[in-house]
């Protein structure tokens, strides 16, 4: 008898979103450590600012995206709302960072931002963990 069991059956999407945030924080931490070693404290703070901007945006977006519905259109509208909120939060936080932090190291900020943004997709591995039991 072959039974296919998907570990993410929709209801535990909360777990997937928390996994996404964990990946983003881990990537940000790695960039912070590299920036601290290579360029010093201001670069590390800049990398932290870039990574946190994406992570905070993704956190609030995941709160909106978790709203479940049986209507596909409602789900889609919620997801697009979540994405819009995420982009607005990221842009506002980046604007504040560039305006307020005078000793900013721009390349470290971009590195933290890029790492956090790209590693959000790493939680796909959590979704695709399909176990086959024979």
């Amino acid at each position, binding site marked *: 008898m072959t039974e296919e069991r*998907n570990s*993410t*059956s*929709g*209801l535990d*999407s909360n777990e*997937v*979103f928390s996994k*996404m945030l964990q990946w983003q924080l881990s990537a940000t931490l790695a960039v912070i450590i590299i920036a601290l070693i290579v360029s010093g404290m201001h670069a590390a703070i800049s990398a932290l600012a*870039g990574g946190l901007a*994406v992570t905070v945006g*993704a956190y609030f*977006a*995941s709160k909106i*995206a978790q709203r*479940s519905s*049986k209507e*596909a*259109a409602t*789900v*889609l509208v919620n*997801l*697009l709302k*979540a*994405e819009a909120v*995420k*982009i607005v939060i*990221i*842009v506002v936080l*980046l*604007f504040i960072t*560039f*305006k307020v932090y005078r000793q*900013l190291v*721009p390349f470290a*900020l*971009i590195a933290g*931002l*890029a790492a956090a*943004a*790209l590693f*959000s*997709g790493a*939680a*796909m591995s959590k*979704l695709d963990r399909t176990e086959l039991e024979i």
Partner: protein
Amino acid sequence: MEALALIQAYTGVGIGLIIGLGAAGACIGIGIMCASFLEGAARQPEMIPQLQGKVFLLLGLIDASFIIGVGLAMMFAFANPLLSVIPK
């Protein structure tokens, strides 16, 4: 003075291209994915909860390039490294 104006003008054009082309690419990608999501949901409505998480994560991946572009554009707008070539 003329070099400063030229650099600022071309940087402005570059910022517009970075944000505009990035937004266009992200919008095309999101449009294709949302169409596929609706198609999949219409064929198998019971798959909506599983697809929801995947669509959200893929939205983040598609938007990653746009977000990185916005960060680069802000860097050129607020801390333009090209201005360092002008002698003080």
